C-alpha cells in the first residue's frame, strides 16, 4: 500500500515534470534487516525498478502521443535515434497537432481549405545525412527480404575455382572476378590456384575480398604460349578439384576464370544443378591489333558484325540437350594468337571450362556407392601429362549434362581473354615509386590549352616502363637538361622527345 502510494506520489511528481524529490514521510518495516528479508527487499526493489522502467517506457509513449506527435520529426532529428516509435508511421495521418484535437473524426468540418495555398519550403535545405543512411538501411533490408522471398531457397555453397598467375592484367582480371564473387549472396569458397607458387601479391588481393579463400600454389610457371597455358590451366583446375575432394567441400563447383565476366544471375542459376550442368558462355573474341584495322576492314566486318559467338549446350525445341555450340575458329584461321600478348585474336577452346558446373559430391572419394556410374574417378583422369579439354572428360556419358539458363538460351557469363605482353612490366603491388627528389613545387597543371608558364617551375615526370627485366617500374623525374631545352614547347612535346630517345637507347 505504501509503496503504491509512493509510486502514486512520484507519478504525480513526474507529471509535474520531475521536480525535485521531496523526502517521503512513509516508513518501511525492517528496512535494514538481515539476509532473508534483505534479499526479499532487494528483489522487491529490483522489481520496482523494472516496473518503473516499464512505466517510463509507457509514459514516454503517452507523452509522445499527447504532446509531440505533430513535431515528431524534430524529435527524431535532434535525438538522432534510430527511429521513433513504431506507432508513428502508421498513425501519420492521425498525427494532428494538439491545437486541433477534434480531427477527422468530426464530420462537421473539413480541414481542407479551397483556394490558394502557400508552398511550404523548409528552412533546412539539404538531406540529413543520418536520414540518408537510414533510407539506405531500409533499401538494404527490403532487398534482403526480396532475396529471401523470391530467391533460391536453401542455397548450396558455391565453390569457385580460379587459376591465375602474376602478370600485368592479373590485378584487373582477378579484381573483376573477386567483385562478382563478393556479390554472391550465398556461402562461397574460392579456390585460387596460382601458377609459379603462391605470391604475397595475390594473397593480399585475395585477403581484401573478405571471402573464404583457399590459396593454392602451383609450382610450374605459366608458359608463354596460349596452347600450353590452356593445358596448364586445366591441370591447375584439377588441382583445385583435388582440394575439393580433400576438404570434402560440399557445394557446387564452378570454374571462374579470372578473365570471365559474370552476370549475377549465373549464381542463382547454378543452384539448380543436380550433378553436372552447363551454361552458355558468350565469347568476346576481340580483334587484336588496331593497326590492322584499315588493311582488312572487309574481312573484319564479317567477324565483327556477326552476332557474338556462344559456347554452350544446344537444345531442341522440347528443351532437351542435343549437342553443343562450340566456337568456330575458322574465320580466325591463321590470325589467332599463339603467344600471350600476341598481336592477334585470342581464341577460346572448343568448350571452355567456365561453362560447366558440377556437384562437388561427384568428386569425393567416399560414397562411391552413391556416385553415378557415368562419372569417372578423379584419380583416373587428369594425370600430369594428360590434357583435359573440358570437364566433360570426367564423364563417361556426356549426355547426362543438365543444360542451364533456359536451356542455354541465356548467356550468363562472358569470356574475354586479353593480356598485356608477357614481358610487360608494372609497378609492384601497383605502388608507384614516387621519386623523392621531386620536391620542386610544380604549380602548373599540364592542360594542353593552358599557356606555358614560367618554365623554371616546370616539372615533368614520365614513367619508363620499357625496361625489360626490371621488376619494379621506376618513375623518373625528367628534369633533365633536355626537357629544359624544350621548355618553350608544350610539355607534351617534350615528353614525346623523351620517350623517343628512350626507345632509341634500347
Amino acid at each position: 500500500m505504501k509503496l503504491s502510494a509512493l509510486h502514486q506520489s512520484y507519478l504525480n511528481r513526474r507529471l509535474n515534470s520531475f521536480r525535485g524529490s521531496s523526502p517521503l514521510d512513509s516508513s518501511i518495516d525492517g528496512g535494514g534487516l538481515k539476509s532473508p528479508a534483505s534479499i526479499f527487499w532487494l528483489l522487491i526493489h529490483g522489481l520496482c525498478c523494472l516496473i518503473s522502467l516499464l512505466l517510463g517506457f509507457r509514459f514516454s509513449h503517452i507523452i509522445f502521443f499527447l504532446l509531440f506527435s505533430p513535431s515528431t520529426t524534430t524529435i527524431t532529428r535532434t535525438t538522432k535515434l534510430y527511429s521513433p516509435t513504431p506507432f508513428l508511421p502508421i498513425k501519420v495521418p492521425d498525427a494532428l497537432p494538439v491545437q486541433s484535437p477534434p480531427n477527422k473524426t468530426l464530420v462537421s468540418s473539413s480541414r481542407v481549405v479551397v483556394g490558394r495555398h502557400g508552398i511550404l519550403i523548409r528552412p533546412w535545405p539539404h538531406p540529413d545525412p543520418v536520414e540518408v543512411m537510414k533510407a539506405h538501411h531500409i533499401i538494404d533490408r527490403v532487398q534482403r527480404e526480396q532475396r529471401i522471398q523470391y530467391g533460391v531457397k536453401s542455397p548450396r555453397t558455391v565453390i569457385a575455382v580460379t587459376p591465375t598467375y602474376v602478370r600485368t592484367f592479373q590485378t584487373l582480371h582477378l579484381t573483376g572476378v573477386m567483385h562478382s564473387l563478393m556479390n554472391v549472396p550465398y556461402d562461397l569458397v574460392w579456390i585460387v590456384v596460382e601458377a609459379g607458387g603462391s605470391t604475397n601479391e595475390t594473397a593480399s588481393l585475395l585477403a581484401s575480398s573478405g571471402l573464404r579463400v583457399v590459396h593454392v600454389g602451383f609450382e610450374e610457371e605459366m608458359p608463354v604460349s596460349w596452347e600450353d597455358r590452356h593445358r596448364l590451366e586445366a591441370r591447375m583446375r584439377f588441382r583445385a578439384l583435388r582440394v575439393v575432394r580433400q576438404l570434402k567441400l560440399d557445394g557446387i563447383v564452378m570454374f571462374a576464370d579470372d578473365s570471365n565476366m559474370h552476370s549475377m544471375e549465373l549464381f542463382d542459376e547454378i543452384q539448380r544443378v543436380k550433378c553436372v550442368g552447363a551454361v552458355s558462355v558468350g565469347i568476346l573474341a576481340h580483334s587484336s591489333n588496331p593497326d590492322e584495322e584499315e588493311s582488312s576492314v572487309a574481312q573484319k566486318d564479317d567477324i565483327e558484325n556477326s552476332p557474338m559467338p556462344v559456347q554452350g549446350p544446344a537444345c531442341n525445341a522440347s528443351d532437351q540437350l542435343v549437342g553443343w555450340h562450340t566456337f568456330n575458329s575458322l574465320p580466325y584461321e591463321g590470325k589467332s594468337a599463339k603467344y600471350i600478348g600476341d598481336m592477334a585474336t585470342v581464341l577460346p577452346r572448343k568448350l571452355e571450362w567456365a561453362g560447366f558446373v558440377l556437384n562437388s559430391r561427384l568428386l569425393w572419394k567416399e560414397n562411391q556407392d552413391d556416385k553415378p556410374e557415368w562419372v569417372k574417378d578423379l584419380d583416373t583422369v587428369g594425370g600430369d601429362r594428360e590434357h583435359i579439354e573440358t570437364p566433360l572428360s570426367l564423364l563417361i556419358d556426356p549426355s547426362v549434362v543438365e543444360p542451364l539458363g533456359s536451356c542455354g538460351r541465356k548467356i550468363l557469363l562472358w569470356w574475354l581473354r586479353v593480356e598485356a605482353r608477357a614481358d610487360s612490366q608494372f609497378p609492384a603491388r601497383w605502388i608507384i615509386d614516387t621519386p623523392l627528389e621531386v620536391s620542386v613545387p610544380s604549380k602548373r597543371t599540364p592542360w594542353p590549352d593552358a599557356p606555358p608558364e614560367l618554365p623554371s617551375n616546370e616539372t615533368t615526370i614520365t614513367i619508363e616502363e620499357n625496361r625489360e627485366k626490371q621488376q619494379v617500374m621506376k618513375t623518373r623525374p625528367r628534369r633533365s637538361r633536355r626537357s629544359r631545352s624544350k621548355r618553350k614547347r608544350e610539355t607534351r612535346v617534350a615528353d614525346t622527345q623523351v620517350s623517343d630517345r628512350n626507345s632509341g637507347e634500347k
Partner: protein
Amino acid sequence: MGTAERSKKKVQVYKKAVFHFLLCFVMGFFTGFAPTGKSSIFSSLPVLPSNQSAVPLQRGELLLEEIPEESWKFNTTLENPSTEEEKEDEIDGLIPRRLIILVTPTRMNDKLREVNLRRLSNTLRLVPPPFLWVVVEQKSDSSQVSEILRKTGIMYRHLVFNENFTDPEVEMDHQRNLALNHIEYHRLSGIVHFAGLSNVYDLQFFDHIRDIEVFGTWPMAIVSANRKKVVIEGPVCDSSEVVGWHLRKMNNLTETRSSPVHISSFAFNSSVLWDPERWGRLSSVQDTTQNTIKFVKKEVLEEETKLIGIPPEGCSKIMLWNVQIPTGTTPNNSVPATLPDSGQR
C-alpha cells in the same frame, strides 16, 4: 519506530529507492523513443509473422542496435564469413558518409558495353551507400542497358538523349555534360567522378574519394591489350599535395585534343557546379558556357591549391585502371599507336 534516528535512516533508504526508481523510469522513458517493432514483452506475436520479423519484434525494446543484426543472422545463417561484416555494417550503418556520384557514359556501338556495364556494376554494388550512379545512354529501342541496371540493385539514374554524334569523344563529352546538368539542376551534393565503362576499381578507391573537399586527383594506370607498357597518368604528390604530373606518352602528334589529365583521374565536389560562391568564385556554369565539362576541367586547372592527391599518403597507390581493349569499334586515338617492339621474340 518513531525515533528520529530511525526515521532518518528510513528516509535515506527511501531516497535511495526513489532515486533508483526514478533512474529506471527515465531509462524506460527514453527507451520508449527507441525503434521497436511492436515492442512489448507482454505482447503476443502477430498471427502470421514471417520468421524474420518475429525476432526483432520481441527484442526491439531492450537492444536497439541488435534488431537488424539479429534478423540478419536469422535470415542468413549460412553466410558465416559475411555475418561479421554485416554486424559491423549495421553498427556503423548510421554513420553518415558523403555521397558519391559516379557518371558513366555509354556508347551504343561499343561491343563491350553490356559486358563492361555488368562488370562495373558488380564492383559498384560493393560500394557502401550513399552512392548514386548516373548512367547516360543514347535513346534506343533496346532496353538492354535499363535491364542490366535494374538487376544490379544499385541506386541509379538512367539518362537518355536523342542527339546523334559521329565523333565518339564529342559524344562522350555530351553525355558527361548531360549528367552534370542533371546534377546541377537537382543540386545534388556529392563527389562527382567520371567512371568509364572500361575502368577497373580497387574498392578502397571509393573510400578515399569521399574525403575530397573540392578537387581530388590520383594516378591511374592505363593498360592495353597486347602491349608492353603500362601508362601511368595523374599526379605526383608530396603527401596529399600535388607537386607534379605523370605525363602520358604521346608519340602521335595528331592527338592534340586529348588532355593530359585523364577524365577518370579526378573527382570534384558537385557544389562547384551549382554553388560557386561557396568556393569563393563568381563564375558558375551558367555564366561561362553551356559546356559544363569544359568548365570543370578549367576549374581543376585553376584551383590547384584546392586539389588534393588521393590516396592522401602520397598518392602512390594505383586504385584505378583503365583497360584498353581494341574491339575494332573503339576509337583509334584511345589506343596508343605504338608499334610492338619487334625485337622481343
